[in-house]
């Protein structure tokens, strides 16, 4: 077909019909001769319709005659089915150079005109804009995904930080709680001997008879020594924690040290009626390098605990040689094991007993005093000696503490290994212990008017410490009271609930709050539950904030702290007995 075979009317009509479309439209007949070429295509290709209409499309675009395209175009005319040419497979169906110098991406479909002319329309869509939009969308999506990933990462980091902070907060709270418990215990442990010291000093000042005076002085000395031991423990632990204690390695005999500590503890063990044994295993060297002072300190502490916590049976110190794991040439370990048949340690306490401010039993029923620092000191000293300490225990059956330190069998003629240890004694010389401040004396007028303000009044003292029993009983008796002493809360409950209802044998109870068997809190609660209405005064060495509230909450009427102030205590008792009498009269 040539230009001359297509009428100008057809060309004009076709152009008018398709020119309004934003698509490239080319009408072809079955021979792919161009019948119409719209304005959009003119603009895209620069080919005027007058130059192409009536000419074979392949003249300008040879690719349409390619096998893969020509056969499908032929099918449009044969079957009447529209076909599409995708941008990906036919990006340049009619190659059109854009002003940017890039070929236009296209989506093309070819569909029969349906007007009986036997022609088909090639409709070309410019995908430049949609693709650039899609690209933009992809970039936006990628950025969004990156942002989301970044946000997720930040969220994860925040969650991790939050978890760490929560854990740190929990540990801080736990540490604070432990410290508070420690302070409460320390307060109790220090106040208990002070109560005896100050109280018996008052007795001496009052002018006791010679026999009572000697007994009072011995009590003061014994409690003073106990107080010194507590202060020493605190100082020792402080020094170790501050890193001021180093092992002073020297040639020493593990056998001598073991025999020495066993010998030192034997008297105390025999006093408690338990056996103390020493066993030396094979391979233990006659001499090795270690710090004998610190080693002796650890062993004395372990043996002291074993004896203290064992009511019957035996305590044994075993010294053995052991291989290190993994084995190291020329070295091994000496293991000191202290076993007892005592009360044992609950499994959940085993991990914390070497921590400072922790004791296996912090409850008020503790039967055994002590600072709770001994094992913490042992743990630190074991590390200082280059070794480890551990424990196995079964409640009710006993415990075994195992100290393992390097054997260091080097010749004892060898020079010191460069450790410069500062002894505890030196530290104590450098920092003398401050003298405890005596409590302020009570106003003398309290009992000045009446030398026997409690004459004939019946008071029950529930107190487990023998020194305090004697001290409190002394003051009350001196004030004229009739005193009965029991050792724990259970005995107090029994004594008071066995009383006939009309004439109580005890008008007032002085209740120590920390006692074995049944503590003061439990005993008071039990008494109130059983209907005991008489006054109960809490007497405790716990002087921390909250202790008063705790005592009153348990059912006590009043609260007095140790060391006792005898005049104030007597005045308090007299006050409560007066109220009690008034209440009874009413």
């Amino acid at each position: 077909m040539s230009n001359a075979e297509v009428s100008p009317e057809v060309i004009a009509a076709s152009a008018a019909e398709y020119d309004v479309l934003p698509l490239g439209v080319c009408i072809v007949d079955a021979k792919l001769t161009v019948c119409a070429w719209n304005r959009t295509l003119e603009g895209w290709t620069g080919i005027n319709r007058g130059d192409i209409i009536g000419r074979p499309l392949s003249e300008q675009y040879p690719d349409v005659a390619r096998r893969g395209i020509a056969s499908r175009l032929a099918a449009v005319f044969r079957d009447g089915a529209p076909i599409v040419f995708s941008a990906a497979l036919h990006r340049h169906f009619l190659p059109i150079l854009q002003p940017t110098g890039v070929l236009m991406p296209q989506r093309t479909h070819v569909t029969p005109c349906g007007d009986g002319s036997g022609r088909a329309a090639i409709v070309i869509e410019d995908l430049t804009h949609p693709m650039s939009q899609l690209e933009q969308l992809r970039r936006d999506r990628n950025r969004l995904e990156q942002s989301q990933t970044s946000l997720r990462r930040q969220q994860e980091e925040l969650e991790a930080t939050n978890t760490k902070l929560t854990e740190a907060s929990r540990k801080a709270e736990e540490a604070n709680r432990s410290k508070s418990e420690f302070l409460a215990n320390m307060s109790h442990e220090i106040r208990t001997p002070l109560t005896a010291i100050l109280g018996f000093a008052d007795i001496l000042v009052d002018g006791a008879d010679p026999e009572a005076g000697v007994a009072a002085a011995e009590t003061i000395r014994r409690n003073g020594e106990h107080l010194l031991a507590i202060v020493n423990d605190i100082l020792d632990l402080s020094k170790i924690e501050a890193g001021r204690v180093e092992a002073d390695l020297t040639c020493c005999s593990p056998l001598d040290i073991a025999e020495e500590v066993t010998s030192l503890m034997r008297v105390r063990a025999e006093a408690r009626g338990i056996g103390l044994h020493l066993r030396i295993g094979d391979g233990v060297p006659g001499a090795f390098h270690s710090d004998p002072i610190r080693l002796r300190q650890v062993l004395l502490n372990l043996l002291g605990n074993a004896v203290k916590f064992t009511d019957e049976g035996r305590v044994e110190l075993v010294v053995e040689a052991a291989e290190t794991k993994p084995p190291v040439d020329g070295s091994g370990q000496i293991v000191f094991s202290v076993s007892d048949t005592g009360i044992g340690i609950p499994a959940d306490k085993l991990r914390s007993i070497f921590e400072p401010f922790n004791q296996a039993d912090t409850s008020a029923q503790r039967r055994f005093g002590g600072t709770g620092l001994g094992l913490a000191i042992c743990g630190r000293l074991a590390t200082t000696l280059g070794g480890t300490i551990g424990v196995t225990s079964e409640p009710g059956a006993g415990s075994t503490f195992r100290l393992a330190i390097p054997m260091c069998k080097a010749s004892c003629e060898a020079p010191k290994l460069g450790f410069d240890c500062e002894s505890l004694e030196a530290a104590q010389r450098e920092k003398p212990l401050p003298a405890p401040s005596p409590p302020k004396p009570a106003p003398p007028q309290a009992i000045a008017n009446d030398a026997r303000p409690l004459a004939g009044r019946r008071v029950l003292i529930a107190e487990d410490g023998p020194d305090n029993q004697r001290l409190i009983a002394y003051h009350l008796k001196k004030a004229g009271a009739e005193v009965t002493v029991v050792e724990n809360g259970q005995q107090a409950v029994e004594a008071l609930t066995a009383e006939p209802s009309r004439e109580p044998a005890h008008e007032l109870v002085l209740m120590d709050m920390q006692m074995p068997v049944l503590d003061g809190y439990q005993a008071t609660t039990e008494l109130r539950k059983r209907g005991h209405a008489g006054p109960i005064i809490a007497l405790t060495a716990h002087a921390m904030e909250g202790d008063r509230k705790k005592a009153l909450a348990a059912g006590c009427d009043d609260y007095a702290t140790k060391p006792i102030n005898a005049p104030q205590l007597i005045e308090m008792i007299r006050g409560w007995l007066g109220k009690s009498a008034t209440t009874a009269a009413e």
Partner: protein
Amino acid sequence: MKLSPDQLDALTEVVNIGVGRAAATLCELVDDHIALRVPNVRVCDPSLLGDPTSLTGEALDTSVVQDFSVTMRGRALLAFPQSSGVTLAQLLGQQDEGCDDLDFDLAGVLEEVGNIVLNAVLGSLANLFEGELDYTVPQLRAEEAAEGIIADYHTGSDEQTVLMADAHFDVANSAISGSLLLAFSMNEMAALLDKLVLASET
């Protein structure tokens, strides 16, 4: 509508004639070997179509759709699970695999492939009637269940039936499964079956 085994065999053969033509066109298009098989054809009520799934058990949610009319009227779908459709388009368009998104280019490729297959199958059926069909331009419908697209098609009061077949593409050592679905009126299906009988007799 229940078809006899002979009717189903004949229908399968006609569909496969079209499928074979489509495969040849695809081979020519991408200049590579492509096998396309439709091993069995079945006919069911549209209401029983339920949730058609591919052989892999995934939902058919990406379809190329073409409506046809005149000699027969109906709707034709070549449907895939999206991941399979994306893979097929990537293989044919020689694009990098690995992304599951049906982007602009891949949608175009899938649309063209569907167009080739549907044109060929419908052309094969139309030949039985010795008549012509009018077709709409193919359209890709993504993220839309195939049974919903079939259900949307109405041809008046005539009861509808669906011819359904599994379609297997073997491209570049990969096997991809989709489904071919043709919805048309029961009467036209009956007429189609009559033509099949006539064709087999001749």
